[in-house]
Structures are given as structure tokens and as C-alpha cells.
């Protein structure tokens, strides 16, 4: 049985008919074609599917679509400014060599964004803690942590 939901996605209102068993990730990728959010495991262990719901970073692969009713969702596609300027985190990831294969990158950036939106000056330990649920096999995390820290330091 389809249900209608309304929520804010990347600052625009979305009204859609959804199947109750869909996850937010499924809806984003398969229905809306927003493939920037990745699926690395499908059971909430790798963080590649991280998006922000009402300010909190969540694993969209576990998040039932009906739960987004009335909420505000931000994905990697939604953090670029309207005139195409990259978010500070995106710039910093590029400049610091924090990207290799890139599959974890969107989720990593969204986790970091939720942290720095909530906290002006998170510590390195808080950064590590925040992205501990975002697995990366390429980089050894060092440059990712540096990239996030650099955005914080410039504040």
C-alpha cells in the first residue's frame, strides 16, 4: 500500500508516494536518482549512506522512508551553494588529498557536516569519534581527519 509523504529535501519540498518498506536510501537512489549517497553494506555498519535528517547524521540504509515525514533531509547533492560553489568540507577534502576511491567520501562529508553544524570547534577526538562509523579502506583516515580539522581551524 502506497502512502504519501511530504518532507524537505535539500531545501525543497518533496511530496511523493512511497512504499512503507522502502528505506530513505532506496528512495533517494532508486526513486529520485540521487546516487551521490552510496550503499556500502546495507545494514548500518559502513556509513557510506550517511545523510543529515533534522541536523543529525543518520544511516539512510536503515532509515524507514515514512520516518522523514515533515523532516528536513540533506544529502551530498544539497550542500553545494546555488551558484555551484563547493561546501568548505568538499573543498578541504580535495585540497588535503582526503579522497582516493571516493566511495566513502559523500558519507564521510555528511557525517563531518553534521558535526561542524552542531559544534563550532570540535576537537580532533570528536572528529574521530564522529567519523568512526564511516569506514574507509583507502586513506587510513589521516587526511580525512586533517581535512575536517582544517575547516574547523579556519572558523
Amino acid at each position: 500500500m502506497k502512502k504519501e509523504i511530504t518532507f524537505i529535501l535539500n531545501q525543497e519540498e518533496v511530496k511523493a508516494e512511497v512504499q512503507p518498506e522502502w528505506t530513505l536510501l532506496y528512495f533517494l537512489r532508486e526513486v529520485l536518482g540521487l546516487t551521490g549517497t552510496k550503499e556500502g553494506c546495507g545494514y548500518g555498519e559502513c556509513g557510506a549512506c550517511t545523510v543529515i535528517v533534522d541536523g543529525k547524521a543518520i544511516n539512510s540504509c536503515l532509515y524507514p522512508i515514512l520516518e522523514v515525514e515533515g523532516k528536513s533531509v540533506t544529502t551530498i547533492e544539497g550542500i553545494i551553494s546555488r551558484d555551484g560553489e563547493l561546501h568548505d568540507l568538499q573543498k578541504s577534502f580535495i585540497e588535503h588529498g582526503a579522497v582516493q576511491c571516493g566511495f566513502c567520501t559523500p558519507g564521510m562529508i555528511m557525517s563531518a557536516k553534521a558535526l561542524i553544524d552542531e559544534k563550532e570547534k570540535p576537537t580532533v577526538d570528536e572528529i574521530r569519534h564522529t567519523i568512526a562509523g564511516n569506514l574507509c579502506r583507502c586513506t587510513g583516515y589521516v587526511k580525512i581527519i586533517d581535512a575536517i580539522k582544517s575547516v574547523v581551524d579556519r572558523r
Partner: protein
Amino acid sequence: MDNFPVVGQRIPKRDAPQKVTGSAIYIQDLKIPGMLYGKILYSKYPHARILAIDTSRAEQLPGVKAVITGYNIPPFKFGFFKDNPPLKSGKVLSMRDEVAAVAATSPEIAEEALEMIQVEYEELPGIFDPIQAMQEGAPILHEGLKSNVLKLPWRLICGDVDTAKKESHCIVEDTFSTQWVTHCCLGTSGCVASFDINNNLTMYSNTQIPYLAQRDYIDALNVFGIKNRKVRVIQCIIGGGFGSKLDTYAYEYIAILLALKTRKPVKVLFTREEEFIATSPRQSTITKISHGCTKEGKLLFREMEMILDNGAYTSWGATTPSVMMMPISSLYKVPNVKYIAKCVYTNNTYSQAMRGYGNPQATFAIESSLDQLAEKMGMDSYELRLINANEPGEITPQNFKVTSCGMKECIEEVAKRIDWKGKRGKDKGRGVGMASLIHVGGGARVYKSDGCGTIIKIDDYGKVDVFTGASEIGQGSETVIAQIVAEVLGVNVEDVNVINNDTDVCPWDVGVHASRTTFVAGNSALGAAKKIKEQILEIASKSIGEAPEHLDIQKGLIFSTKDKEKNTPLGKVLRNAHYSTGGKMLMAEYFYDPANENFDKDFKGNLSVSYAYGTHGVEVEVDRDTGRVTILKYIAAHDVGRAINPMMLEGQIYGGGLMGIGYALSENMNFREGRLMNPNFLDYKMLTAKDVPPVEPVIVETNDKDGPFGAKGIGEPGLVPTAPAIANAIYDAVGIRIKDLPITPEKILKALKEKEKRGQSGEEGK
């Protein structure tokens, strides 16, 4: 060394903008109109006879377009020994054996259909331990064979080990073992197979070997009755490689078979659980090792016998002993060497290439044993390493010709930065350890060719397109190649576009493996860039009125080196060349195949044009109550020839290092009677951002004479010496030697207890 405007600079990765914005298209993201989804049914038992398969219910499920089994496909086998059919009939030999496959209009329907397939098995006794598999009376896996030991001639003899043993002042002997580990690429494996109306195949793939995969697919199509057709391989952005995509797999042939049967594009995409179970990891090994040296500490011999769990089928894992021979014969100067390895079939998964290609397993045994030798000699293991360190100009027992070699510098840098003299053997509960590595740094002639092609063309506006055979799996080859071309052509690196993902467009390459891409594809790009630069200057010489040898290019401007006022923009010269009567198109191609050698029948020969060296040093703290190891400091010194891009080079060292620390301390594919008990990230325990120790990369530049701008390979070395460096540090900290990876708290606690029982310190060098 010279400084350059582009080479040696920290240029951001060229494809990073699309990756940080989510616009990069991975195989996960690819959809083709009309595409179907393939799913695979795996065996229920590690060893069984298939008595019957009933697919009739699955076939009737709405949305199902095809169901195939090993009983209704042409007889085809793939892999290094051609011992692996894409779908099994008769017997299954492992839990990952593919039994049936479905193509349906959605992945959910395909999954549902799998559940409707009835397979009747007769379970057979399995064999999961390679030592048991070698014993008489053990069940033989492959029908027609007399033994589970693979017929592979892994035997290296250099000098005379028996005489060297007699002459040795001091000898140590011990046994070390390593575990199964897997790549854990964040993007799971997948492909889309699509035939056109004339039966030409386009394969969208994650492969690391597009041109060898092309041949594999053509071989398969020939058996499937599609002869003399074209195969095109297109790579999406690849979500991690690490060796996992160095072979072709059953799922790719299954996609092809389903696409043929349905006449629709078919996508097969692994779930995470499948990625753990059905990709081919680094195998477990058991190694008996013995070292002997003179009174002064000069190594006289190294003898190793190794048993490798090959698993059920044969892929490149079975050939890793050929690369293990490299550290065995040539890590430190050791004149007499004997190495014998046996790969053994078991009902586990099956082994393949993984970053390091056997080197981590061999180096764990070698570098642990060397510390034992030093202790028995009463020597500082740092001194022992320096005495025996490799040097430029050396020819090793396996006939490797060492050109550039910064091993001593690496050892010394590590000792200095870790405060070796100050900390070694001093502090109970804390300790330092080190270990070194050798790896191929100038390609590796494992196939008949070690070549890579490059084509360069330049458009009317001075923008450069570089078509390379080299695949990009995240390591940054596209950026390094762009830097090399920009440096030679005197253009901005932003104006160089690298195209690297389509066999219809790009020239040939043997694959991304053996840490070869910077060296081989870099030299290929260098050659092509020099050629096209000659053409440009030749044409420009007419319009500028200066001989070509007195012309150069900087920032896209061609100028006379005698009079800089005489100049013209690159784009203008090209437009003139295109638009003039009898015009000329600017394009150059170059094929670089390094002057390295295949091994001869005795496994000797100069495998690589140059060799990469490195040393890792680690300071650990061991908690005696919990067995927990904390890495306080980690120094990774690498002789890289030259850092073409120090930022990305550090990325290889950090990434390799952390993968190596996981190998040393936590990662383990836990097989119980052939069943993988931890096929998920929670239980597999790859390291997270919270586990990152303070790592300090040290880049040692030796300017290799054959490398592009002096560079050597760095893709694999970062994880090679990690485990023995940590094991040696743990021994220094608490006097216990863990000889079986991973070094878990349980093993440490057990060893500490045993040591307490013995009531004495150390048991090294028995």
C-alpha cells in the same frame, strides 16, 4: 634533485571534485534502459554432490526472465588453472560455489526467485586445513587429480644452504603463520553485461585488468557460441581495488550468460555479505623459516618452507609464491637461499591477489626471524639490519639488479625518529620494533609483457587529452600521469585531461598491479609527451622562425630560449597546423615496456627494473591485564625514487599502513569448516578512524635512473613490513613473540601466562 613546477607538487587528485559532490558514477549507480538484475544462488555446503536442481517455481515467478544452472550452460571454466566453472554441476567445493542464477526485472524479484530454487545435495566430508588436505586418504577435491597439492613448481635454490648451515656461527629456526584477510573495498563488486544486435559485448566492469579481462570474456564467448565478436570493457569509477579485481570471476560470466539468454543488459551487483564470501582474498600461510649468520652478524643463509591454503579453485593466489621469492632471496643481503612452497586445495574460499601479493606473509616470517637471530647473537637488531642492508649496485642471489636503493637511509631514519637507542629494551610494557621491505618498484614482468600504451592529442585551444591504458582504482594514477605530461609539455596541469576507462578508446595495458602504474604508465606518458612536444616545436619553428632545438614551452606559451620575445601560444600553433593546406594533426603514441625479465625456469631473473625499499618502526604499549596493544608512534620510511605527488604518496603510505596494522592486530576471516563466520564489517574488524595511531611518513628520494622523473612504485609497500614491525615491538615490550597473525589480545594474554609459568624472560632463538 631538480625542482619542477608540476612534478613533485601536491596537486589535488583530478577526480576528487566529482567524488566529493557525489557525481562520480560507480557500477552501483549505473543503469541502462531495459536492464535486468542478476542474482546468484550459492552452495549450502562446503563440499557436496548436487543430486538435483529444480528451478521450475522460480521460472514461473512474474518478473523472472531467465534462470540458469551448471546443467544448462555451455561447459566453460575460467581461472589460472581453468578449474572453475561459473556455475557448478556435479560437485560443489566451497560455500561460495555458484549453483544457479536468476535474471529478473528487479533485484528483489531475483532474490525471491533464488529462494524458490530447490537444490538437493549429498554432503561430502570436507577438508579445511591444508596440512590435513596433504595427508594420505584425505578427500580429493578435484576429480581426476591424485593429490590436493597443486602442480606448481615453487622452488628457489640460490647457492648452497647446507654448506652455509655448517659454516654458520648462529642459527635460528621457527614457524610463523598468517590468516585469511580480505580487501574490504567500500564499493562492492559488480558488472553490467550488454550485447548489441550483432552480439558484440560491452562489459561495464570494476576490473583492474581491462585488457586481460577482455581476452577472458572473448574466450568465454567463443565457448558460448559467440565467435569473432568485439568485446568492449568500460570501467565506471572504481570503489577500491587492492588486487581484488585482478582476475575475472564467476559473477561476470554469469552476467554475460544471463544477458545472452535474455537479450537484455544484465547487472550483477554484490551485497556486502557476498563481497565477503564470494570475492577472493589473501590466503593463510604456514612458514617454517631458518636463518644463519657469521660471528659478525652477516647473513649466510635463509631457508623457508611454506604451505599456502589455496582454497577450492585456482586464481592468482596460487602464484603469490613467485613474488614471495623476492623478499626471501633479496630482502637484505643473503647469499644462500632455499624456498619451497606448496599450494593446497581445501574446501575454503579461494585465494587471489591482495596488495603485496604474498610479500606481507613472507616478510612477517623473515623480519620476525631476524629479530630472533639478533637476540640469539646478542646483537641489536637495528645493527644486524644495517650490516645486511641492501645497497645500490648489488646483484641479489635471484639475479635482481639493484639500481637505486635507500634501505640504509630508511633504517636510519626510523631508528632516529623512533628513538631506537633510547627506547629499545628499556621500558617494561613499552617497546619498539622495526622491519624492512623490498618490493618491485619498476614494474614486474609477471606476464609476457609489462607494457602500457599512451596516446596524446592536443586540441585547437591547447588542451591536452591523454589516453592511457592505466586503470584508476583510487590511487591517483590519472593525476600522476597528468602531472608528468604537463611537466614535459609546459602546460598547466588543469589543461591535461586523462581518459583511462574504455578499451575502445584507450591503448593497451597489462593492468593495475605490482605497484607498477606510476613507473610504467608514467614512463609511457613521458615518452608520448616527449614525442608530441617534438612535433609541436617542429611546427612552431616555422612560425616563430627559430630552430626547434632552441624552442621550449612554458604555461602553454612556445618561446625561443634565445629570445623570449619570439613566442606564440600553443593553441595558435595547433590551429595553424590543422587549418593550413597539407595540414597536420597533432597526436603521438608511445608504448613503454620496461626492460625487466621474466623469471627463468629456476625463478631467477631481473623481475623489475628497479626495487622499492622501506622500513617501518613502531612503538607499542602492551597492557598486561587486557592484552591490548596500543601503537604510540608509527614511522613509515619509504624509498620511492622521487615523489611525483607527495600528498598522494602520503595517502598510499597512510592507507597501506593502516591496512597493515589491521592485518597485524585485528583482521581475520574466521572460517569454521569452510563457512565464513564474520561476513560483515562489525565482526571482521577493519580499523576505523578511532584506531589511527600517530603515523609519520618519511619519504626517501633516491632518484631512480629509469623511473619517470626518478620515481618508483609505492602502491603496495605501505603494508608489507607492518605486522613484523609490530610483532617485534611487542616482543621488546613484554618479551613474548606472537608467531600467528593477527596478534589479538587473547593470544597476548595466553602467551603472557605461558611465559609466567616458565618463569623466565624470553624464549627467542631456540
